[in-house]
């Protein structure tokens, strides 16, 4: 395409750049676009999971039994990369407990359960009319408190993205691509509420003063494009001048953040980097609309637009639904009848990147952009995988320029180093490779497995490194302590010897100096005494604790040891049979210690006499 442009002599910056790879799965979007976005009715119970975003799990700030109002914060962000959660409606907190949540693991996590009172009473709100009236820090705090996360599916906390250094960011990329088949939540939003998206752009622009704002939409959404164009005429000219609406051919995964950046600007996000490294911010249209809600109306993220689709559902379309609504009731509302003849398959997200839910009774979360319930005809179960025939189709379609089959071999043989050197972590898990694989190998699962294993191994290695340091530090400490003890002992022995020598020499000096025999006898006696006392002290130091104890100290110790023995014996008598053995050893050890102390006490008078 770009070559054609070059041949025509068209040297202007192109409308869009061609990224490598990609696939064209059947779009299946029309069935959910027949009607307008429907409001989903209020329910009796809402389950709000505490980890609806990437980052630290938020911390509940309500207690069981507490009444909450719609939009009230019920869990606060825990750390920088985190987001608060809000009550989707007014009611009472009935429990804070682990519940299953939509996650490929099928595991449970902490959730706040709210029984609705049916009134949907809002907490007091303070709408803002003009952004200019408020300071940026207030604006950021308002965004932070609104619990916004990226609504495109990845759920990265929006406030964190919007905290990027404003001096380095000059471009806003608005992602209206929605390249994944079946999903039409963003499409419906752009079609029905384009002004809301533009108001969200206005908020971001207020923070960053963008040089240019690029809205990217695939060419399969002409009605959304015309709605956006109409809405663009109604905004201030200053802002409108910076906005470019770009339409490009439909191809999966043009909506991937990195692919979209390249599509619109021809620049590549550095490996392992973020669009901000290129001075760009990338936001989904849904996120921007929610941003406008949060800032102007003081309405935190308590609902979202979700697509209900798949031919197993009699009613297909988009609904605006409160977060925490039970997915089962949503599906029942859409008239879902499970097919008794085959395994149930409900996919959260689209057919390319979504995951199958293992049950229906799960809360709808911030990331739920679509609930897809396909029939066997429209999305057949993949046939059993065959061995890879190295056909290279996966490589042709990989939008990241990776070698998917090589990565698969490495994952299979657990060669993590090689997988990493083949840029495993640049894989965006779009699934294009697995889509075209003639052997139907679950390639993406291999990458996820490899990534998870590598991350776990890295964490384990960090931990073992810490354990090694702690072990070495402890060994060093023990050695030091032993050395110090030894030094002290030697010092004392030295001192004692000096004292003895003094005692021995003093009488010699006093007695008649002329008698050599007496002097010799005295010297030998002194030597003997000195060695004897040194030996005595040495034996004393063998027993742990204090080596140089006076009689008083020894008897005090004896008393305390006897008291402990009494207690221990009493405990032994009362102990449960399974603890008896341990107590017995304790008692016998105490007895031994007492015996030792008694002996020492018995030794002491002789030497001190």
């Amino acid at each position, binding site marked *: 395409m770009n070559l054609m442009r070059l041949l025509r002599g068209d040297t202007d910056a192109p409308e869009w750049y061609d990224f490598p790879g990609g696939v064209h799965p059947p779009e299946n979007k029309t069935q959910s676009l027949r009607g307008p976005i429907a409001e989903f009715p209020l329910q009796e119970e809402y389950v709000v999971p505490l980890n609806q975003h990437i980052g630290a799990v938020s911390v509940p700030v309500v207690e069981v039994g507490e009444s909450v109002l719609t939009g009230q914060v019920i869990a606060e962000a825990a750390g920088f990369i985190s987001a608060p959660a809000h009550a989707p409606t007014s009611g009472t907190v009935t429990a804070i407990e682990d519940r299953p949540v939509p996650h490929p693991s099928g*595991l449970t996590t902490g959730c706040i359960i709210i029984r609705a009172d049916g009134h949907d009473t809002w907490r007091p709100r303070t709408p803002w009319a003009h952004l200019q009236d408020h300071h940026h820090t207030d604006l950021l705090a308002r965004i932070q408190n609104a619990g916004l996360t990226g609504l495109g599916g990845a759920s990265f906390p929006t406030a964190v993205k919007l905290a990027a250094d404003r001096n380095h960011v000059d471009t806003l990329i608005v992602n209206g691509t929605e390249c994944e088949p079946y999903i039409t939540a963003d499409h419906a939003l752009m079609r029905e509420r384009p002004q809301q998206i533009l108001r969200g752009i206005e908020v971001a622009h207020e923070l960053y003063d963008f040089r240019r704002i690029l809205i990217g939409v695939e060419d399969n959404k002409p009605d959304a494009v015309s709605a956006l164009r109409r809405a663009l005429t109604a905004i201030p000219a200053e802002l409108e001048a910076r906005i470019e609406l770009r339409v490009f051919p439909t191809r999966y995964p043009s909506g991937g953040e990195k692919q979209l950046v390249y599509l619109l600007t021809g620049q590549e996000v550095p490996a392992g980097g973020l669009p901000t490294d290129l001075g760009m911010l990338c936001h989904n249209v849904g996120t921007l609309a929610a941003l406008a809600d949060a800032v102007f109306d003081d309405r935190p993220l308590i609902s979202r637009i979700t697509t209900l689709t798949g031919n197993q559902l009699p009613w297909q379309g988009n609904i605006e639904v409160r977060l925490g609504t039970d997915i089962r009731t949503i599906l029942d509302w859409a008239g879902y009848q499970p097919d008794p003849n085959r395994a149930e398959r409900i996919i959260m997200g689209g057919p390319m990147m979504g995951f199958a839910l293992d049950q229906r009774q799960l809360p709808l979360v911030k990331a739920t952009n679509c609930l897809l319930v396909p029939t066997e005809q429209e999305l057949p179960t993949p046939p059993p995988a065959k061995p890879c025939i190295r056909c290279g189709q996966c490589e042709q379609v990989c939008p990241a320029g990776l070698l998917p089959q090589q990565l698969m071999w490495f994952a299979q043989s657990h060669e993590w180093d090689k997988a990493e050197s083949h840029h495993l972590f640049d894989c965006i898990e779009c699934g294009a490779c697995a889509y075209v694989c003639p052997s139907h190998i679950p390639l993406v699962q291999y990458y996820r497995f490899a990534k998870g294993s590598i991350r776990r191994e890295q964490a384990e290695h960090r931990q073992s490194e810490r354990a090694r340091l702690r072990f070495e530090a402890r060994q060093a400490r023990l050695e030091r302590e032993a050395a110090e003890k030894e030094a002290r002992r030697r010092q004392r022995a030295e001192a004692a010897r000096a004292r003895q020598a003094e005692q021995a020499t003093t009488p010699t000096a006093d007695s008649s100096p002329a008698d050599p025999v007496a002097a010799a006898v005295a010297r030998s006696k002194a030597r003997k005494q000195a060695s004897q006392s040194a030996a005595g002290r040495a034996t004393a130091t063998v027993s742990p604790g204090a080596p140089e104890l006076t009689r008083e100290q020894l008897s005090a110790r004896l008393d305390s040891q006897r008291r402990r023995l009494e207690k221990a014996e009493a405990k032994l008598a009362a102990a449960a049979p399974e603890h008896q053995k341990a107590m017995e050893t304790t008692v016998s050890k105490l007895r031994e210690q007492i015996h030792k102390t008694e002996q020492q006490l018995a030794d002491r008078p002789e030497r001190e006499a």
Partner: protein
Amino acid sequence: MIILWSILALLFLAALFGALLGYASVRFKPEGDPIIDQIDDILPQTQCGQCGYPGCRPYAEAIANGDPINKCPPGGESTIQELADLLDVEPLPLDAEHGEEKPKQVAIIREDECIGCTKCIQACPVDAILGAAKQMHTVIASECTGCDLCVDPCPVDCIDMVPVETSIQTWHWQAPQPDYKLIATDAGRSGEAA
């Protein structure tokens, strides 16, 4: 005459190569033994002593001196594999006499039963137990290597080893099972033929 020349030639060659060997042994003397550090880096540093050596580093030294690489139950198969790759030897199955590979564990003190004897503190190789004499002790779970050395010394048996449970945060995808292994004709006949 031929014999003489042959002997002379051989002697000359011997002298020449002898000198070369002597020079090489001085010039290229290996310094230290970094292989021990590399082995130590692979070992899981639980310091549990199950290998029969007091700590991971002594075992690393023993491996460098030719000890089998299959004596580390906490490291398990993956450590054996890594060691085999590093040392270019055949990976052996784990020697069961040294224990068996278990999922990662962490020690937990049942705190109301603790009598504050400090014995577990002395036993812990990585100082992961906090407490003082006659005070209740507790395990710093993030530092515990799961070596279970603290379990035996406890006079009142109040320490449990519990497997670390997978949470949503630590969970990750497992490798796909090749489908042809799931097909009925294979049932009960796992593995490759030799």
